[in-house]
């Protein structure tokens, strides 16, 4: 097999800050090379350099043994190097087909060959076992379908080198399986693949070669064969990982949240449940089961009917502010679009929810500054510069900032939607510790997660939702992956049926 | 209806004397298309158009009028097409928003045998219209210029405020310049005040900062004259210079009547020309009076002595 793209001693500086300290990385045709590391380890920067989005400050890129410098991503793409982003590069207003062929439309003369493009788009999607209509607007697709469209787009371009930035972060297990099969097929067809994921089992399953980065440094590159998940984690974090989940706290008797006959029209119906002080309550279910909608309805982000009582007092519906004042906050799963202002600095993000605590007429900027220092310490947010934009933080640090933002409102009840999506294992552990510490302090937490180990590891009680209804509740030793899945899919014996 | 316009005395006199002789059975519809009232002069023009229509409808029951005011040339073309298509007009009185774009639509109207009266701004192709009624832009500039040349001494300084850059403005300013040529008057500066009070105020403020000695201002329009006078009074230099506006706004005429030393005279450019045009057109339809041809309303100097004749307190302009 031949070396396609080779990076030697890559150093990258942003201003005075060096984020990559001499990283070597090779991509070979017909090989899947995994790049792993914690958030902020420099994976994204490395991938962007390989994909032509950034140029290295020092070091050399070689394409087929010849030194190259990509002036832009277009040049890299012309050389057959394609990157699939975690944040999709799709035009939401255009259709699937238009997106797949964007910039390389098939045409005869002045006119577009719609049917040819549609057929090919359908073929490409079928290879991914994705059956959306090519005429659908991408904006109307679910996140996982968008991911498939993004991959189909790369497939359509016959990439020699495919750089995939956490492609499975938002996919269900079934979709993940399908995608991994596809990637293996691409490898067998001779494509060089760079693959990143925080899910180490995936790495184990498909990678041929694994490179670990830590704090911008090259830690190790070795064949995946015989590289255990634990060893990978240790290499990434730089220390032994003790048990991932802390001990579960025992909830108190007091009911802090009581939801009855709650319906979000068109999304979910008739949910009733209670949350106790000091409890971690898990909400499991398939994507689209209505968990997020239920929680958004409860805190007033969606029009809904039904009754919500916080500490026994009825909650004014439709007002996020009222919920926040009553001590109930919701941490969105979509931190980039709904959680943080990516173009604003850390302070403005941190204090946005609880701004009234910093003066009702004049904002006390010194107090804000102190709050930021406090948050950086409390939540171990790794910042390069206190004035940096939230968008420049790595995913894990964004999540910590979002947590800090919500906690600044001093809530009694915290609803966390997908607390660790797209986050590395070290940060995950920190967040798990944080959640159980909250419960231990007598706060109450609801965790929505699609990662079953997370739900099982954190929650003392689990409510499973399926198709817009509460399908059942599990507690103690009954909380197992199997029972959760059966409930989520409607008690069917046949687990192949999915939403 | 006591309101009487001197300028169109001749035509109006004819109309009144030759009043309904033969009560004809035929009914006539006259379409009137004029620009919308976006500034003082057009406001006056709109007022005079409506007033004359009201009066004519009262006098001649067999006449019907369709009045359209348009904000731009395209809208005016649409209005004219609608009048022809849906109202079956027998005559069209039009003040073209712009000459070029209106020429062929008006020509099309003419080709259907409809009487066409063009007011103020001529069409790009001569000879389309049956009747042409207009103010005299060259005369407007010249009359003002002659007053300046006569009144000022050799070496006196003046500043000029021009209107919106158009042919009409050029004609006026060229005629003014020609009239003061050889008189030894210095034109310190000319800037566009866009026939707008606020713009004229700003321009005049800047003139006053720039020049220490100004003997007179040709503001060329009474809206601009209002702004100019205010700027002068702010600078406390009212004693130093006088101002000549134009078009005969009622407030300005009133001040001339009262003998304001800052406003010695004014030059007419009557918005009432539209009334003249409508009345002559009506007359042509209801009677056998020959009314075709060109009818240029000369610009006159308004002085404290004759100002009363030009004062219409009811007009918005």
């Amino acid at each position, binding site marked *: 097999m031949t070396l396609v793209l080779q990076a030697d001693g890559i150093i990258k500086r942003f201003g005075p800050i060096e984020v990559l300290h001499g990283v070597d990385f090779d991509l070979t045709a017909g090989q899947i090379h995994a790049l792993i590391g914690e958030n902020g380890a420099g994976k994204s920067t490395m991938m962007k350099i390989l994909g032509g989005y950034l140029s290295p400050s020092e070091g050399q890129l070689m394409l087929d043994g010849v030194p190259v410098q990509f002036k832009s991503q277009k040049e890299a793409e012309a050389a057959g190097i394609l990157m699939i982003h975690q944040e999709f590069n799709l035009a939401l207003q255009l259709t699937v087909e238009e997106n797949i062929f964007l910039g390389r439309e098939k045409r005869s003369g002045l006119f577009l060959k719609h049917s040819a493009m549609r057929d090919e788009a359908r073929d490409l999607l079928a290879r991914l076992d994705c059956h959306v209509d090519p005429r659908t607007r991408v904006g109307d697709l679910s996140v996982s379908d968008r991911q498939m469209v993004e991959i189909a787009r790369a497939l359509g371009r016959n990439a020699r080198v495919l750089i995939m930035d956490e492609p499975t972060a938002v996919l269900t297990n079934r979709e993940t399986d399908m995608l991994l099969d596809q990637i293996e097929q691409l490898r067998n067809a001779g494509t060089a693949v760079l693959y990143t994921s925080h899910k180490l089992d995936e790495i184990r399953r498909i990678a041929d070669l694994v490179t670990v980065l830590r704090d911008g440094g090259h830690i190790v590159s070795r064949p995946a064969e015989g590289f255990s998940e634990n060893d990978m984690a240790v290499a990434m974090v730089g220390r032994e990982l003790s048990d991932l989940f802390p001990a579960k706290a025992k909830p108190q008797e007091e009911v802090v949240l009581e939801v009855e006959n709650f319906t979000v029209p068109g999304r979910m119906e008739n949910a009733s449940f209670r949350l106790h002080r000091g409890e971690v309550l898990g909400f499991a279910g398939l994507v689209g089961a209505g968990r997020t909608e239920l929680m958004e309805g409860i805190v007033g*982000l969606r029009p809904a009917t039904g009754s919500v009582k916080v500490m026994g007092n009825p909650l004014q519906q439709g007002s*996020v*502010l009222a919920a*926040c004042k009553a001590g109930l906050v*919701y941490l*969105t799963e979509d931190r980039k*679009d*709904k*959680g*943080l*202002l*990516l*173009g*604003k600095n850390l302070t*403005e993000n941190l204090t*946005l*929810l609880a*701004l009234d605590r*910093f*003066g*009702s*007429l*004049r*904002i006390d*900027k010194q107090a804000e500054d102190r709050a930021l220092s406090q948050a950086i310490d409390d939540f171990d947010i790794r910042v390069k510069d206190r*004035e940096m934009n939230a968008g420049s933080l790595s995913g894990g640090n964004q999540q910590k900032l979002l947590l800090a*933002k919500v906690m600044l*409102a001093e809530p009694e009840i915290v609803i966390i939607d997908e607390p660790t999506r797209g986050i590395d294992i070290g940060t995950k552990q920190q967040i798990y510790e944080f959640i159980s510490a909250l419960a231990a302090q007598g706060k109450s937490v609801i965790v929505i997660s699609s990662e079953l180990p997370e739900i099982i590891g954190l929650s003392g009680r689990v409510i499973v939702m399926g198709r817009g209804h509460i399908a059942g509740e599990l507690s103690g030793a009954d909380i197992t992956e199997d029972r959760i899945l059966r409930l989520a899919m409607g008690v069917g014996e046949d687990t192949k049926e999915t939403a | 209806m006591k309101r009487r316009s001197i300028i169109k005395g001749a035509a109006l006199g004819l109309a009144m004397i030759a009043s309904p002789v033969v009560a004809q059975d035929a009914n006539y519809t006259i379409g009137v298309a004029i620009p*919308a*009232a*976006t*500034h*003082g002069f057009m*406001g*006056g023009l*709109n*007022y005079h158009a409506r007033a004359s229509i009201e009066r004519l409808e009262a006098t001649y029951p067999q006449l019907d009028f369709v009045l359209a005011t348009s904000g731009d040339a395209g809208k005016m073309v649409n209005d004219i097409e609608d009048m022809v298509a849906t109202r079956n007009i027998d005559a069209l009185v039009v003040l073209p928003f712009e000459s070029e774009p209106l020429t062929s639509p008006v020509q099309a109207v003419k080709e259907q045998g409809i009487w066409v009266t063009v007011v103020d701004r001529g069409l790009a192709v001569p000879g389309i219209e049956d009747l042409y009624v207009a103010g005299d832009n060259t005369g407007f500039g010249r009359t003002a210029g002659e007053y300046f040349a006569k009144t000022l001494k050799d070496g006196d300084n003046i500043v000029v405020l*021009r209107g919106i*850059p158009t042919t009409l403005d050029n004609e006026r300013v060229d005629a003014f310049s020609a009239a003061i040529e050889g008189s030894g008057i210095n034109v310190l*500066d000319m*800037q566009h005040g866009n*026939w*707008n*009070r*606020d713009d004229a105020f*700003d*321009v005049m*403020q*800047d003139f*006053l*900062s*720039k020049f220490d000695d100004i003997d007179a201002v040709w503001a060329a329009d009474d*809206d601009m004259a*209002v*702004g100019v006078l205010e700027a002068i009074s*702010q*600078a406390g230099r009212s004693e130093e210079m006088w101002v000549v506006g134009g078009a005969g706004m009622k*407030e300005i005429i009133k001040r001339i009547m009262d003998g304001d030393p800052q406003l010695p005279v004014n030059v007419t450019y009557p918005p009432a020309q539209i009334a003249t045009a409508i009345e002559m057109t009506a007359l042509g339809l209801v009677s056998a009076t020959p009314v075709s041809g060109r009818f240029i309303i000369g610009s006159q100097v308004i002085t404290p002595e004759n100002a009363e004749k030009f004062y219409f307190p009811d007009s*918005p*302009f």
Partner: protein
Amino acid sequence: MSKLAKSSPRKFNLHVLGPLLALVALILLGASLNSNFLGYGNVTNVLARSAFIGIIAVGMTFVITAGGIDLSVGSMAAFVAGVMILAMNALIPILGVGVPLIVAGMGVALLAGFLAGFMNGFLIAKIRIEAFIVTLGSMGIYRSLITWLSDGGTLSLNFEARSFYRPVYYDGIWGVSWPIIVFAAVAILGELAMRHTPFGRHCAALGANEQVAKYSAIKVDRLRMGTYVLLGVLVGLATIMYVPRLGSASGSTGVLWELEAIAAVIIGGTVLKGGFGRVWGTVIGVLILSLIDNILNLASIVSPYLNGAIQGVIVILAVVLQREGKSAK
């Protein structure tokens, strides 16, 4: 932000200083072309005539920062001026000419501005019609209304009331005329509100990402409506300063003020699509626009036909100078 300057002394930042440099360059140019340029009279003239658009542009800064736009302010100013004049003329028999009449007129102007802004805000925030469409519509409505109220001509304030009211534009304290004082006060309060109050912070958050604002317990509808109401009230305030100048309002009052105000906001570094605004920049933008006119009048170095072109070039240049900072996004 102020701490930033102390803690990390940044290198020369064109993004921040662009408009300021353009202003300084214009002032130097003006001073070199005409010795009266920096004289008391001219400086007072320029500042006072900037005041109307300036006061409005400060309000516009908040609307644009919050992700909105208002095209109706020029027409609205004309309409409010017309209503104010009619109301004052009508009140003379009751109140006589004196301070109560002026105060009543000011109250009418502020109320009319408030209501006009409220209408815009209500349609945009509650009924959820595009701001561009709503304000384009109200632009036409107010322009027609003022033309109709004035019967196509000019509405003039009663002569005696006018003489009494006139000092509000022309006089002041310590040689600084009232419009300048009011403009300065509005600008300073606006700057404080933008930078140091939850209102300003919330506007920027709303303009940056409405979803995040909503998820951060910000009452998005009320906030958005608030920006339009604030702008309406400031239009009323600008009108209070405008009416005593010429004592009249007509269909040609305030034509294109909306575009001048928007241009001033953008020249000042506020982002047109929202999310970031700065009031001091807007003030500089307004001054730049006024100075261009002033210098062209004072200098007459180019054909007056080209005034618009020169303005256009300077406006674009002032914005180009700021690009450096933004492209690093």
